């Protein structure tokens, strides 16, 4: 049987059309795959870390301050000192330091032949100019941390002499990653530009920065510890919604991300590595005793007794945190056992204190001003409401302005802590402490207790005792009610090797990414 010409022709045409479609589809698929391949291998097969994280608004450490963002900035900047897994100060840019006999002067000895990524020498003069800028620049967020420093001078090219306003053995801890990420003095001549285009001497150098989207960094071969950095490229991407973090890491979009406690269970179920990094985190209810009704100590006490810390642990940290009534997690060297559970959860007593102060249940109505809606805020609202203190949660995206101007009456804060426990104490309880909502209020005896802790060498057998005494004195403050502590939780792909367990910090030396 012969096939008619028209049919054969039609069949041939259909086959030809199908072939063309298949070819087009194949080409499109190839292009898509090629695109994917290009994206995945943009580093040319070099070990690349893809990290989903809240991108810093400021890249100048002087402007960024000593909050949690220092962990990101530490990719681009190296610090004068670092800390080890025990939280002790160890060499960074400075290979050593000496105190004078009086304890009011410390000399840091820099490593030789250090350079910034713009080619400028990282010498004693550069460190001096950085510390002076941190103390004097108008928008410096660090000047409050440097009140112990009276003067900085240089001795030769490699010695930085720091003269202090008081005897203070905390300086090597203070001048670590949070406070002393050294910037290039040449780049710092234009602080606005430096704030968006970092120039440091850290393990990586920023090669591309698209605010709100991504930041790409390449390994800095001139970093003082470059031999131990095994990652060639870091890609920071704006963190996705918490609910999608696990699937993002699971599918290989990212290698590392911070994880909400609610996502630990699905991350583990997905076979990902969940890292509980030790730290100094502690959350609190911040109270302004300069404003009514907290000018009445009985109302503050009522709040203290109204707080059920275990509820925060169960519902905010999903059991991964700990209840704490101090600015440190239990077990930390500055944690004072004598002060533990000084105000246990006792709602009946809280109600009685309110009545003694002359307030009927519901008579007090306060705004709890927070930067974002949070489970912790709802718990505070519920717990204070249960004893008769009416709280309305007010979300203010510009919360930081009134908070640090000490204009709020009631708020919440979570500190990531400081490497220097004395710095943590003064930040919370000092008269000008940034986390003291009741400035210039300071509890009686705190200044003396802190001074003694400062004067105590870290290796002294009295150090822990004096530090804890300072904590005890600080906890007499009516301005803060601490609630819970939670570790930094990260999720990582199995491609990324273990992260060093440095408390509160992320260090990249020794970390490897399997391509």
């Amino acid at each position, binding site marked *: 049987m012969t096939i008619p010409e028209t049919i054969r022709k039609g069949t041939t045409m259909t086959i030809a059309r199908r072939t063309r479609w298949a070819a087009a589809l194949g080409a499109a698929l190839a292009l898509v795959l090629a695109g994917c391949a290009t994206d995945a291998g943009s580093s040319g097969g070099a070990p690349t870390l893809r990290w989903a994280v809240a991108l810093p608004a400021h890249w100048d450490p002087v402007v960024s301050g000593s909050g949690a963002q220092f962990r990101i900035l530490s990719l681009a900047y190296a610090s004068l000192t670092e800390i080890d897994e025990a939280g002790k100060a160890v060499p960074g840019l400075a290979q050593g330091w000496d105190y004078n006999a009086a304890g009011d002067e410390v000399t840091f000895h820099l490593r030789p032949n250090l350079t910034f990524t713009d080619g400028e020498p990282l010498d004693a003069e550069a460190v001096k100019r950085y510390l002076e800028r941190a103390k004097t620049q108008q928008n410096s967020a660090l000047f409050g941390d440097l009140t112990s420093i009276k003067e900085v001078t240089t001795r030769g090219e490699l010695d930085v002499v720091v003269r202090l306003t008081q005897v203070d053995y905390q300086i090597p801890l203070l001048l670590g990653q949070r406070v002393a990420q050294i910037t290039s003095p040449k780049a710092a001549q234009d602080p606005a530009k430096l704030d968006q285009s970092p120039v440091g001497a850290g393990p990586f150098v920023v090669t591309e920065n698209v605010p709100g989207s991504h930041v790409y960094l390449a390994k800095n071969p001139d970093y003082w510890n470059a031999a131990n950095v095994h990652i060639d490229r870091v890609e920071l991407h704006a963190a996705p919604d918490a*609910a999608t973090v696990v699937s993002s890491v699971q599918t290989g979009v990212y290698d590392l991300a911070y994880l909400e406690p*609610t996502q630990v269970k699905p991350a583990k179920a997905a076979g990902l590595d969940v890292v509980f990094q030790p730290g100094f985190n502690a959350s609190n209810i911040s109270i302004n005793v300069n404003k009514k009704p907290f000018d009445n100590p009985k109302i503050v006490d009522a709040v203290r007794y109204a707080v059920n810390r275990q509820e925060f642990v169960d519902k905010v940290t999903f059991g991964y945190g700990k209840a704490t009534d101090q600015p440190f997690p239990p077990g930390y060297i500055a944690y004072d056992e004598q002060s533990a559970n000084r105000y246990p959860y006792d709602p009946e007593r809280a109600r009685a204190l309110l009545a003694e102060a002359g307030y009927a249940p519901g008579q007090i109505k306060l705004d709890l001003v927070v930067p974002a809606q949070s489970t912790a805020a709802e718990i505070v609202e519920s717990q204070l409401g249960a004893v008769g203190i009416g709280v309305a949660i007010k979300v203010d995206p510009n919360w930081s302005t009134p908070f640090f101007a000490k204009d709020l009456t009631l708020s919440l804060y979570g500190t990531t802590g400081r490497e220097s426990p004395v710095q943590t104490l003064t930040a919370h309880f000092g008269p000008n402490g940034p986390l003291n909502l009741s400035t210039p209020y300071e509890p009686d005896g705190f200044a003396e207790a802190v001074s003694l802790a400062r004067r105590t060498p870290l290796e002294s057998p009295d150090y822990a005792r004096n530090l804890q005494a300072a904590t005890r004195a600080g906890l007499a403050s009516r301005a803060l009610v601490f609630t819970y502590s939670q570790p930094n939780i990260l999720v990582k792909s199995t491609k990324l090797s273990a992260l060093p367990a440095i408390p509160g910090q992320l260090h990249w030396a020794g970390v490897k990414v399997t391509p």
Partner: protein
Amino acid sequence: MLRRILGLTSGRIAVGILAAVALLAVFGPLLAPQDPLAGSTDILASPSARHLLGTDYLGRDVLSRLLAGSRLSVLGAVQVTLMALVVGVVPGILSVYLGRGFEWVTLRLADTLIALPFLVFAVAVTALLGNGIPQAMFTVGIMVSPLFFRVSRAATLSVARSPYVEAAVISGASIAWIVRRHLWAKVLPPIAIALANTAGVGFVVVSSLTFLGIGVRPPAPTWGGVLASDLGYLSYRPWAPLAPTVLIMATVWACNLLADAVRDVSGEAGRALLHTRTIRGRLAAAGRDA
């Protein structure tokens, strides 16, 4: 008109759902089996006899929160609709009669409002005026009002140029009389359709804003708020978003269905359609009787 709407299956479904939602708005907080704000240690629990829809991240009864949240969600949608109606219809009608200057200004204003993304604008206004549903809904109402402006203006224009209105004008009738006597009957049906549509839009907007945490102070429950909080705990309660989603979806669908039903029964064609259906129904009934 209601009788005619109820004559249609889609109309009966829409009215039924919206009546149920209205009842929830009025009696929802009373029907809530538990205190919608009271937490417990039983967090993220699965449905049980005690908690028919389980509990949320603070151990609060989800069913109670949905019931208690109905009022805020419905009132928000109603506020949007009424605001849009008042702000849109009156200038829409007057733009035909109050001269070229007023017409030009109102048309440009309507064009401007249409060009603005109303959800983003509502977020900006709540940032300026304070985080509350009234502020947000006031803004959205104004942003949606061009729909009413255009509908009422188009209907007015068609009537204003009709011979009987021109005759009334020549006879010395006042604008108010013309509007009352001739205009309302022609303008009301398209406005009713727009009203039902806008109510649906209002539900979507209020749910979207409360989903984002805008317009409501926690821990006050809303449908959008319950949905948002469920999404953070999908690995624990993957089915949880279903209940608020179905509520929002059914309400919006009912609004759109009602708009269709109003369109079907309004005007000459609608009345003829309904008349035909009625006759067919009577014939069918007569056939069964025989």
